[in-house]
């Protein structure tokens, strides 16, 4: 779905959406089958269907490289489906399938970015057909087409007669040419034969074999379909019937005394009841299908049930809706909290505005929930990574997913995918030990990585944990010291503080750059990503037992609970989630060090003071500590106090980004419009505390 307002043709849009969905489904099935070393009938059918669909759709959209690849994989799974019991090299098969998935995903991505889908699928197609050949050789069964089972000699046949009546019959000769590109001319010819048998008492045609032979298609394209038949029906009616042929390009119809030589020759062949042979063929084919249908029914009815209650909506429409609802919330506040109404007694008005408030809140909740998506898709993406990496690193790893139904704003999901990937990679690469080491430490040989998502208040927690070797506090401290990232003594720092050093730019204790996690490029980028959505990371670990990385992210970016504060004539909003407490300070409690940095003592602890009026250069009369208020705030690592003039009150505010012309200053996260029309700047606590 276009996120940046790019409008694509709806057909392309649906193609991309469906292709992406199908690839995700296919990937999940593949990993599951490979893991269990088993492919159920349902799985085979589903994989076949997915390939079939991708083949058709891609061909329609003229993405031929994808179509050809899908076709070859479809053939592969067709063989697997039709062969009753065969040996499958799961690794080889699913490696190929996953490579195919990657190729298709790559092409889709190119198309989404308005580039040409110019990837070459030939190597994979070759691999696929080679694999198919190998399977055929190994299992000794070759299936040419779906008419394989027919044992009868159907090369020479004459259609069955309706009745051998005594009406006057006339011999006709017809030559039928079909439109170019209509495909399956042999089957179309068969249709003609099938329809004519109702009125014809005999029929001979060239090409003779329109059932088994593919050559007949070429012959018909080249010379047309020649058919001689005898009927008592009038010429007009015959012509009418033949002119109804779909894709008819040209029809030559004439009454004849005798059939031409080539048809006469056929007359001498054995008569076989066409109908009987076909119904036998259908019995042959039907049986496997029947079984499949029964087995599939349960699983797929559920699936199609789910599909029916979901519609896909363009994200830009949702964004617009959300924006409008945000505006309504602001407007509602501007009406109900209008300064004009100050001091007036308006009982009825107040009642009505409370009702309005209730409705706008509900509207807001519903619209927010539309944008909420479960984290499951993102979590499941990790399966592939675990599978690929564990193979490459030769480590046995199990990925456990908990709480995947937890929902998060769509905007946010897009931002956590990459960080999660990096964390999982890190765990696999550096956290989990090799098998031998694990066994030596009395751990199960299979390493475990757990992905958990849960709700807590107005935030969502995503926790990545592993049972690997954990973080080495000493080593990290040493490295941090070496890089000049810490100044205090090791003893003065808590575990959490030391561990969080790995989030600093330029930090890495990895001696070697592995293929997966580079040197010092990863964790600080992860932090940046999380910061950009207003989240926080904290790291905990136990040597030898494992590590836990917790990411706290807001439920939504659009609306936050804030505390309005005044500094001079300006108003600021502090996100409630960052506030620990607020209090009126006493002058004596404020102390300053030699550099003029102020601190305040509270319950035995010292907290740094940040005076907002100084930071933002605001004129205010409230400068002495006695007259203002301290608001204790925290981000994921620090706690400090903000000094403001006064508290105004708690308010739910709609977050608006600062205009792009003004990039935000450090410490400002955005702004909001208050009920009285004034703008309040939203404080970015991390930004302030970092100063």
């Amino acid at each position, binding site marked *: 779905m276009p996120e940046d307002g790019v409008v694509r043709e709806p057909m392309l849009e649906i193609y991309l959406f469906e292709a992406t969905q199908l690839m995700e489904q296919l990937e999940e099935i593949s990993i599951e089958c490979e893991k269990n070393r088993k492919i159920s009938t349902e799985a085979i059918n589903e994989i076949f269907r997915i390939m079939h669909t991708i083949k058709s759709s891609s061909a*329609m959209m003229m993405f031929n490289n994808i179509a050809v690849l899908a076709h070859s994989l479809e053939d592969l799974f067709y063989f697997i489906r039709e062969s009753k019991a065969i040996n499958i090299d799961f690794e080889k098969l699913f490696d190929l399938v996953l490579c195919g998935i990657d190729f298709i995903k790559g092409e889709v991505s190119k198309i989404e970015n308005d580039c040409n889908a110019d990837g070459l699928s030939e190597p994979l197609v070759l691999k696929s057909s080679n694999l198919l050949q190998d399977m055929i050789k190994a299992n000794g069964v070759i299936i040419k087409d779906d008419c394989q089972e027919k044992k009868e000699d159907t090369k020479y046949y004459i259609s069955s007669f309706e009745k051998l009546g005594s009406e006057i019959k006339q011999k006709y000769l017809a030559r039928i040419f079909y439109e170019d*590109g209509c495909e399956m001319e042999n089957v179309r010819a068969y249709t003609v034969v099938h329809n004519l048998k109702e009125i014809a008492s005999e029929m001979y045609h060239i090409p003779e074999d329109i059932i088994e032979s593919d050559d007949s298609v070429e012959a018909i394209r080249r010379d047309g379909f020649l058919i001689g038949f005898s009927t008592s029906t009038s010429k007009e009616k015959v012509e009418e019937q033949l002119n109804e042929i*779909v894709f008819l390009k040209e029809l030559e119809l004439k009454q004849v005394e005798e059939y031409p030589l080539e048809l006469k020759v056929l007359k001498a062949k054995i008569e076989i009841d066409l109908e009987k042979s076909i119904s036998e063929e259908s019995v042959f084919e039907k049986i496997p299908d029947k079984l499949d249908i029964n087995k599939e029914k349960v699983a797929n009815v559920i699936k199609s049930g789910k599909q029916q209650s979901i519609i896909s909506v363009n994200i830009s429409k949702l964004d617009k809706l959300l924006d409008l609802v945000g505006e309504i919330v602001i407007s509602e506040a501007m009406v109900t909290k209008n300064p004009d109404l100050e001091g007036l007694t308006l009982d009825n008005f107040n009642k009505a505005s409370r009702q309005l408030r209730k409705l706008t809140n509900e509207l807001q909740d519903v619209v927010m929930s539309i944008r909420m998506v479960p984290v499951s898709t993102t979590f499941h993406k990790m399966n592939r990574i675990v599978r690929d990496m564990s193979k490459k690193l030769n480590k046995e790893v199990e990925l456990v997913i908990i709480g995947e139904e937890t929902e998060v704003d769509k905007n946010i999901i897009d931002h956590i995918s990459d960080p999660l990937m990096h964390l999982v990679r890190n765990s696999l690469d550096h956290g989990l030990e090799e098998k031998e080491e694990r066994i030596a430490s009395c751990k199960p040989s299979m390493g475990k990585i757990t992905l958990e998502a849960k709700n807590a208040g107005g935030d969502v927690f995503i926790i990545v944990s592993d049972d690997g070797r954990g973080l080495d506090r000493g080593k990290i401290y040493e490295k941090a010291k070496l890089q000049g990232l810490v100044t205090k003594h090791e003893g003065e720092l808590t575990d959490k503080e030391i561990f969080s050093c790995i989030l600093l730019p330029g930090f890495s204790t990895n001696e070697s750059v592995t293929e997966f996690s580079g040197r010092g490029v990863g964790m600080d980028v992860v932090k940046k990503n999380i910061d950009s959505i207003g989240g926080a990371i904290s790291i905990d670990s136990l040597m030898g037992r494992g590590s836990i990385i917790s990411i706290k992210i807001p439920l939504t970016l659009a609306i936050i609970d804030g505390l309005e504060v005044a500094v001079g004539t300006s108003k600021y909003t502090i996100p409630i989630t960052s506030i620990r407490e607020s209090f009126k300070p006493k002058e004596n409690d404020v102390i300053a060090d030699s550099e003029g940095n102020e601190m305040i003592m509270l319950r035995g602890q010292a907290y740094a003071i940040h005076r907002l009026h100084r930071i933002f250069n605001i004129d205010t009369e409230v400068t002495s500590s006695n007259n203002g208020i301290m608001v204790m705030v925290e981000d994921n690592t620090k706690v400090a106090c903000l000094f403001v003039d006064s508290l105004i009150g708690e308010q739910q505010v709609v977050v608006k980004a600062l205009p792009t012309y003004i990039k935000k200053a450090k410490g400002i996260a955005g702004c909001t419009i208050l009920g009285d029309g004034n703008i309040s700047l939203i404080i970015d606590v991390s930004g302030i505390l970092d100063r």
Partner: protein
Amino acid sequence: MEGLFLKKVLITDDAAFMRFSLKTMLERNGFEIVGEAENGAIAAEKYKILKPDIVTLDITMPVMDGLQALKQIKAIDKSAKVIMISAMGQEGIVREAIISGATGFIVKPFKEETILKVFEKL
């Protein structure tokens, strides 16, 4: 299409993309899409309710494939006009569909002109 009433069509395919493509092409040429079905079972059900003039059936679908659906629909209405949407390699199934009463068939991938040529004659 002249006439006061547009011909009503029911489209059956498990792929949303195919349904959308076919729908777009047909609507552009004066047909009314009265319903869509993701598999043969749903198609048969909807046939009973919507009573379309024409039904299109993809062949490869979960739960109930196009061939089975054709037979069901023909059992409901002998004179039903059914167009099979097949892929290359499905000749056998298409032949059986013809015997079971399918009015015609189209091979994927198809272009708009192709679709029209078939639908014109219905």
